[in-house]
């Protein structure tokens, strides 16, 4: 075995000890200042735990403001979304209707009108009784499927219907729907063919 007096054993004194000097105040102040600045940084960059907010967006409001919303494309796209959710089940996502369920909207004379007063009344109040659509006779009833939609949503749906599948009628605005809805009163009566024909186009 090696000689105990070699270098390896000369330096091992007692085990180290720790002095008991207190922490200077400035380091605590520095920590608190930093915590404050860090809080500001977090406030500006974190989006406050919103799972939709990614850098470079700093908060949910900023993200919302950059959603595409202007332009006809946005209205059509939003309308399509609502249409497929609410109307497509019966009228078909292709607008061709379904036998025994609902008439077609593509090429329908009720859709391709100059004004949109009659058309808007159908989803807002519902319709029943005999009527003719695109050369076919129907005698069914539809509930007021659109009454629960907001003005903007219904406007988008009607714009979509009037601009799709070969239909080429003009757009409908939320203000139009608002006007029609207020003109109908609180609990509108279900429409019939004759009632629709009696009102302006």
């Amino acid at each position, binding site marked *: 075995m090696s000689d105990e007096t*070699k*270098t390896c054993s000369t330096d091992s004194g007692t085990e*180290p*000890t720790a002095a008991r000097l207190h922490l200077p105040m400035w380091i605590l102040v520095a920590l608190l200042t930093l*915590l404050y600045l*860090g809080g500001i*940084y*977090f406030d500006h960059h974190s*989006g406050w735990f919103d799972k939709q907010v990614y850098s470079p967006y700093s908060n949910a409001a900023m993200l919302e403001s950059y959603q595409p919303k202007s332009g006809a494309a946005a209205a059509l796209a939003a309308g399509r979304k609502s249409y497929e959710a609410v109307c497509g089940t019966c009228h078909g996502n292709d607008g061709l209707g379904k036998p025994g369920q609902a008439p077609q909207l593509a090429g329908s004379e009720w859709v391709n009108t100059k004004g949109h007063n009659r058309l808007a009344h159908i989803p807002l109040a519902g319709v029943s009784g005999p009527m003719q659509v695109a050369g076919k006779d129907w005698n069914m009833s539809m509930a007021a499927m659109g009454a629960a939609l907001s003005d903007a949503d219904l406007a988008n749906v009607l714009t979509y219907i009037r601009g799709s599948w070969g239909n080429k009628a003009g757009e409908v605005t939320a203000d139009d729907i608002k006007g029609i809805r207020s003109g109908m009163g609180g609990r509108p009566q279900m429409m019939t063919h004759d009632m629709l024909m009696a009102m302006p186009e």
Partner: protein
Amino acid sequence: MTVNEKQIDTSCRVPLLVLFGGAALWLVVGSVLALVASLTFHMPDKFGDCPWGTYGHLQPAADDALLYGFCIPAGLGVLLWIFARIGQTPLRGAMVPVVAAHLWHLGVLAGLVGIFVGDSTGFAWLEFPRGGSALLFFAYLLLGLWALMNFSGRNERGMFPSHWFLIAALFVFPWIYSTANILLVGWPVRGVVQAIIAWWFGNNLVFLWTSLVGIGAAFYFLPKFSGRPLHSYYYALFAFWTLLLFGSMRGVPVGAPVPAWLPALSAMNSLFLIVPVIAIAIIGWKTVRGGAGRECKGGSFCMIKFSFVAFILSALLLVTSACPHFSRLTQFTWFGAAQTQLQLYGFFAITMFGAIYHILPRAVGIEFAFPKLIRVQHWFAMAGIILFVVSLVIGGVVQGLKLQDPNVAFADSTKAMLPFLRASTMGLLFMLVANLLFTLNVIALIFAWKWSVAKTVFAFLISPLAKTEVKA
């Protein structure tokens, strides 16, 4: 040296030999792999014919060999010895850490083979496939529990600041390693949550664990070598809590495809890290300054002083790379790789070199065979890590400036890196030389010990024979 201290040192002998011996071998393996990997940049066409020769296999294997092969077992060995010394209690049941150390090294071997045959999990710092990582986990658990049992049975009841750091580190690894393996490999979570957990794991292992163990060791050796008390208990307490709190709550990079609060929280805590770093720097400076001034000629003291400075620099690089605009510039560049290497090698590995050079001759009772090489080794290690880090930090900023300018073609950002990568390859070469010299001394010591054991056994075997001869 009192008899008691000699007892303490020799009680750790066999576990330390297994931990440090295996670690030394993995250190060389890791640096050879890292060197070969970096050659890819200088002659890419030569590496296309076998799968295991590509950068994507070599680099993770090199990283893991350094971290799991060297850093962790070396750190655990130093921890066992420091616990025994401060607690003034010989290590009991030395067979348990010996078994655990063997399991650990086997796990590293299995993991590295796994990477080369294409079984890598694909998550940074967690590449080892199941078999390897299960071995590592149980080996660590065994060793950690044993260290804690020895700690609770200590004779000297007082606690030294190093205790806090080391105990916290013992506790961190099983927690993060089991979480990461269960949620990323065993029953994987969906989508980017995988990446978030992998970042969290990587930071807590590569930054937090190594900082806790390395600083714990430095707080033991710096006062010991300088002959002064640690300055001071309350500073250390403050540094410990702030390091643990801020150091564990970070890891998600700035532009990660995750909700903004995760990178924001990470960056905020990274910036807060400046506080424990300042506290630790003051502790080191005031402890060493004006000390008895043990000669520092490339010995353990010198290494630990250097590695301590390396920790401060590494942590400062980490803080800098979290600064609002600079973080955008340096992300995806070599800057991060330089910081990681400074943390793992410049700080942690060199702390371990210093500690092992101090501990091993005492534990075994045999001097190193080539004491002059210790100084040479230190110079090579320092030159290597400085060359590597300086070239890649500057290179990383250059690369970042080019990546941030869309008018610069991407290929130019890569080409601009080549001179820096050449310098970093030289750095890796120096580190390889240093690692070889270290391993030479450690392995020579192990063989000297085995030889002395063999002689003793041989003497024991022939001694009755000699007696009978005398009688006859």
